[in-house]
């Protein structure tokens, strides 16, 4: 294990605390504060993985997870970004996408076959002959790809979510972000500060250069962080990457948990009044041959390896840079012991004079107007060829580290996903914010600034603007802050160089997808002249790095190739998640939110097998026999109990209650009599039936009605919508959850019920379609209805939900002599199907109208058409012979029932099976189907096609409905 530099104030590691991990089956140690990547680097690992297509070796590059170079499998989870993931004790780390090992990958020969895989080769090559594609696809998928995951892999860890509200949300905890936070917080506003790294400080945090008056940038970062932490109204979220920004300043992100947190990762959703985008810059990769070879890394990566993790990134380095940060890094790393062979600076002039002097004092050779052209070394860098930009001079130097960067480029994803725009800035050579989204303000290096004071001042200004957007602050102070920014140094001149003077066969513009600048040229040659098209044709920027590496190089290179007079081309769109994270994090805690009835627990104890049905969990079966033979036969021959509490239940009262009923129900609701039930249906404006249920009259202008389970959630809105212009005075109350429902059904139902009630429930006193209110034991109020949905003597008892268990137990006790049994939703489904009682949604679909399902008898034509929803459409559809009709059918030759949804066919599709079951009561398979009108005649033979049935068909014959007890004697007994 490498000896660490442990005297630096910028270190984020504690070398005294060792952390063990396993890599490829062997134990290693890192230290507290290490990322997986820094710990592995300390243990000599330089090749972390192999690339997607060509299986090229890949190593540390950005240290911020901007590419997939260091994606590995950790504790079984593929594609973990090891540069960003803190090392934890006991981690098991494996290489991915290698045959053999990352060091010796048997697939590395693919690198020689790049000529076979030009840009878009899968479009060009694989479609002819077509037969080749399935074979080739399998092989390509075997050879390519990043991590692998099994479909039944269970994600370990704890995932949480939090929904925050704030006045100002600041993205980026660097100096600009912290200054913005402080200036907004001083106004008394609520501020949230998000920082993707585990600590604050950003661009200042790891640097020893002077801030002011002898204070280092690192010390300044520490000072600002302390000020931020001291503000009670700033909520700090470190290790929290922003993944999206949306309309109305909705900001999303994910936070990595600390040991003390109750989550491993949590999804963060922030609703802010204003946003400050201060995410700083990343480095623009320098394009040269083998620019991704292990040993090539960006400036901040090399510097932070030393300053943050206490490791020299190499022994002998060559720098190829285009920014003063490169000079500063060379000086700092030299002073820490790194041998620097040479600094090649793209710039001929414009360097900071102080830095030049320090370079000279250290006798570091500096080549102005030079750039790295090619890195050598099969697996790791062994030497590098430098070239003057005009290609006149060349020089090859031995080294094991190439620190390479073309310059910096602002992190603008947070601005553009919120529909802000960028504009190329000729001075900085960067795409800078142009039109900002409403109430979003940019600050710091995002604006192209580099000077420490300017960065901070821009943060203050953005904080003031954000505060003003929240209604606090004055124009004067904003103007004053703006003047301060103006007086400080503005953006520095940036380099325009995109690529070294090379052909580019092995110059990678996108590491994740193995896309080279040669591929870009190939795409351009095929006429793809816009980055968005090139991106898709070459897959550039489509990898897990979310376009971080190619992001701004692609449009710059395309502009260069097209010799555009100005860079009017824009970077390609980025989309959330701006930083990749786990799907589990998006899922969050994922609480299951289902409704249960008051009988849920008791039914489970009775062996109920539950299913999710809409928003409810309901007992569908009471045994493993999913045909429910015993449950059905018990209801037909004895007595059973069903929990029907999910039924929609409503109270409609007030002077205009009847008018509202008349509007939405197709029947004449003035005929609802006290003590009687009225069954009716609701249609939409197209006459399509949307709901059915019963209505009872509780008193003067006071009604109680039921709806289907699935429709309950929309009923109030539906009635209010259809009476919105009438100014009627009525009130609607949803009592669905308030009242439980017990359906007591079967020939012995009366014998059971009469044991627990005090009223006369004989057929004469409480007949079919009657409604009664009574109390059980002088205590429990019950609304009872004589209905016959399952085709037997039935009582539907509506009971206050809190009393449901008591009534249920009373009925159970009373039913003991009869061996009363539960029955579930599936048994009910079969029972009512035998009786041809329809369930809307099962015997209907969106286009099915009232007449199609045979409920035309409910429609009262004497009501004024304009006043009943759907009546006009029903009148038009009444003589339409082209509509589907609901028919009953029996299968031929005693064959089994077809599956629900099976198609009725001849030469074309003629309808479909709504419900069909093997009937135990009838001893044959029966069902209902919606068929073309000409197939609805009794005796018509139906050909039924099931999924994957091949040439085998089921045949049925249209018969009269209902199948069971056609005279309805049993439910009226």
């Amino acid at each position: 294990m490498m000896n660490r530099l442990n005297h630096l104030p910028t270190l984020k590691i504690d070398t005294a605390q060792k952390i063990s991990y396993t890599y490829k089956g062997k134990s290693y140690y890192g230290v507290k504060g290490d990322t997986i990547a820094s710990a592995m680097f300390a243990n000599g690992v330089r090749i972390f993985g192999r690339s997607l297509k060509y299986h090229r070796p890949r190593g540390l590059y950005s240290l911020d997870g901007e590419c997939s170079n260091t994606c590995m499998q950790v504790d079984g989870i593929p594609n973990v970004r090891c540069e960003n993931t803190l090392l934890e004790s006991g981690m098991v780390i494996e290489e991915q996408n290698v045959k053999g090992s990352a060091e010796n990958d048997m697939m590395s020969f693919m690198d020689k076959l790049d000529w076979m895989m030009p840009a878009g080769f899968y479009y060009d090559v694989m479609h002819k002959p077509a037969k080749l594609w399935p074979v080739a696809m399998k092989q390509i998928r075997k050879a390519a790809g990043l991590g692998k995951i099994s479909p039944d892999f269970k994600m370990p860890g704890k995932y949480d979510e939090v929904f925050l509200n704030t006045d100002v949300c600041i993205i980026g905890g660097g100096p600009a972000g912290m200054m913005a936070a402080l200036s907004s917080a001083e106004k008394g506003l609520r501020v949230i500060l998000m920082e993707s790294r585990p600590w604050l400080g950003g661009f200042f945090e790891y640097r020893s250069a002077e801030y002011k008056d002898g204070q280092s940038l690192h010390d300044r970062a520490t000072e600002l962080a302390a000020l931020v932490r001291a503000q009670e109204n700033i909520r700090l979220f470190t290790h929290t990457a922003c993944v999206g920004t949306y309309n109305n300043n909705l900001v999303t992100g994910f936070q990595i948990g600390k040991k003390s947190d109750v989550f491993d990762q949590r999804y963060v959703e922030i609703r802010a009044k204003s946003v400050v985008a201060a995410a700083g810059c990343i480095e623009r990769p320098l394009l040269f041959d083998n620019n991704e070879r292990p040993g090539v890394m960006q400036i901040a990566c090399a510097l932070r390896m030393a300053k943050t993790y206490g490791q020299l990134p190499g022994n002998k380095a060559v720098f190829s840079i285009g920014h003063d940060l490169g000079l500063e890094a060379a000086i700092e790393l030299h002073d820490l012991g790194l041998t620097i062979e040479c600094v090649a600076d793209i710039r001929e002039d414009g360097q900071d004079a102080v830095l030049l002097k320090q370079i000279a004092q250290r006798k570091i050779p500096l080549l102005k107007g030079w750039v790295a052209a090619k890195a050598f070394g099969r697996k790791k860098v062994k030497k590098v060829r430098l070239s003057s930009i005009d290609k006149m001079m060349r020089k090859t130097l031995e080294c094991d580290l190439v620190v390479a960067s073309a310059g910096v480029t602002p992190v603008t994803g947070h601005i553009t996903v919120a529909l802000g725009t960028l504009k190329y800035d000729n001075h900085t050579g960067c795409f800078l914010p142009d039109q900002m989204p409403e109430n979003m303000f940019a600050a710091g290096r995002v604006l192209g600034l580099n000077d420490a004071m300017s960065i901070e001042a821009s943060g203050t200004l953005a904080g003031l603007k954000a505060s003003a957007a929240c209604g606090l602050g004055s124009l004067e102070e904003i103007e004053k802050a703006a003047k301060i920014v103006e007086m400080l140094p503005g953006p520095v001149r940036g380099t325009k160089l995109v690529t070294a003077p090379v052909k580019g066969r092995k110059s990678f513009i996108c590491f994740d997808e193995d896309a080279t600048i040669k591929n870009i040229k190939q795409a351009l040659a095929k006429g793809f002249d816009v980055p968005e098209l090139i991106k898709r044709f070459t897959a550039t920027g489509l990898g897990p790095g979310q376009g971080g590496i190619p992001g701004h190089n692609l449009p710059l290179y395309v502009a260069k190739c097209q010799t555009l007079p100005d860079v009017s081309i824009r970077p390609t769109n980025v989309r959330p998640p701006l930083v990749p994270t786990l799907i589990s994090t998006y899922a969050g805690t994922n609480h299951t939110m289902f409704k249960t009835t008051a009988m849920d627990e008791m039914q489970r104890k009775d062996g109920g097998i539950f299913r999710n049905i809409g928003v409810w969990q309901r007992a569908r079966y009471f045994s493993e026999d999913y045909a429910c033979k015993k449950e059905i036969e018990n209801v037909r021959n004895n007595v059973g109990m069903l929990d029907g509490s999910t039924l929609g239940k409503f109270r409609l009262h007030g002077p205009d209650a009847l008018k509202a009923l008349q509007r939405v129900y197709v029947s004449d609701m003035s005929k609802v009599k006290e003590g009687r039930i009225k069954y009716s249906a609701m249609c939409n404006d197209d006459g399509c039936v949307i709901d059915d249920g019963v209505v009872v009259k509780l008193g003067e202008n006071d009604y109680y009605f039921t709806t289907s389970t699935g429709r309950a959630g929309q009923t109030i809105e539906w009635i209010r919508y259809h009476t919105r212009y009438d100014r009627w005075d009525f009130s609607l109350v949803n009592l669905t959850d308030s009242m439980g429902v017990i359906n007591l059904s079967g020939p012995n139902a009366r014998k059971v019920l009469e044991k627990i009630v005090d009223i006369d429930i004989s057929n004469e006193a409480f007949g079919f379609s009657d409604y009664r209110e009574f109390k059980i034991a002088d205590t429990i109020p019950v609304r009872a209805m004589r209905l016959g949905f399952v085709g037997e003597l039935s009582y539907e008892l509506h009971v206050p939900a809190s009393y449901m268990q008591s009534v249920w137990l009373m009925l159970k006790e009373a039913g003991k002599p009869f061996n009363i049994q539960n029955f579930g939703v599936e048994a009910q489904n079969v029972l009512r199907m035998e009786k041809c009682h329809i369930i809307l949604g099962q015997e209907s679909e969106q286009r099915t109208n009232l007449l199609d399902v045979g409920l035309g008898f409910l429609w009262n034509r004497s009501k004024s058409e304009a006043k009943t929803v759907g009546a006009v459409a029903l009148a038009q559809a009444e003589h339409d012979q082209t509509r589907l009709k609901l028919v009953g059918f029996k299968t031929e030759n005693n064959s089994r029932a077809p599956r629900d949804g099976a198609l009725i066919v001849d030469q074309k599709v003629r309808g479909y099976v709504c419900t069909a079951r093997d009937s135990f009561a009838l001893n044959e398979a029966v069902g209902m189907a919606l068929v073309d009108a000409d197939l609805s005649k009794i005796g018509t033979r139906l050909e039924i096609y099931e999924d994957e049935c091949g040439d085998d068909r089921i045949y049925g014959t249209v018969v009269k409905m209902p199948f069971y007890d056609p005279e309805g004697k049993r439910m009226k007994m």
Partner: protein
Amino acid sequence: MKDIKRVSPVKLKSNPLKTEKRDNWDIVMEYAGEGGGPYLVDLSHKPRLDLQNADVGAITPFGMTIPDSPGKCILQDGLLINRMNGTQASIYNLGYNLAGQEDVMMPDETGYTDVTESTICVAIIGKNIFSICEKLTALDFMSPEYVAPFLFQGPFSHVPCQIVTLSKAGDDSGIILTCSRGYGRDMIHSILDAGDEFNLKPAGENRFSDWISHL
């Protein structure tokens, strides 16, 4: 008659230390291990009414004036009235059966519906309760724009709820939450799960009575 009882939709797994029977409800007054807060208290037995009228603002239920705009609430002698919209208000009798409080019966006027059975009703009181809430909802309880008591009608753990904030005063903060009774099991699970890191524990009605009496 002894078998007749009303069952709350809220099931809390702690062991009851003291219970009372009222109107066939078994009400837990104190649980074992209630801790130092925050607390989750089942109030589902407290009577709740729905009031609808085209001119609801002109009605004075139990002699109280209904707040003039939606979202506003009034708490007086344990009676909480929440203005829901232009024509509707909800009324929670939080003082029901509390010592010194008179029970409120259903008013004779039209427009009222007893909706006690329709919803679960819980109080979440004590320290850090808004940190628990923000794990379950995007509603902004801590906005200075809202002065307690105020009503939110919106999603809590993805379920439509009425949530009345009665206090935002640090460790004495408290909300009353109602949602469809059917969601009781899962709502309680999600609240306790979210509150676990803050040591949220089930508590008996005594905790609530003490707390509300100090408001």
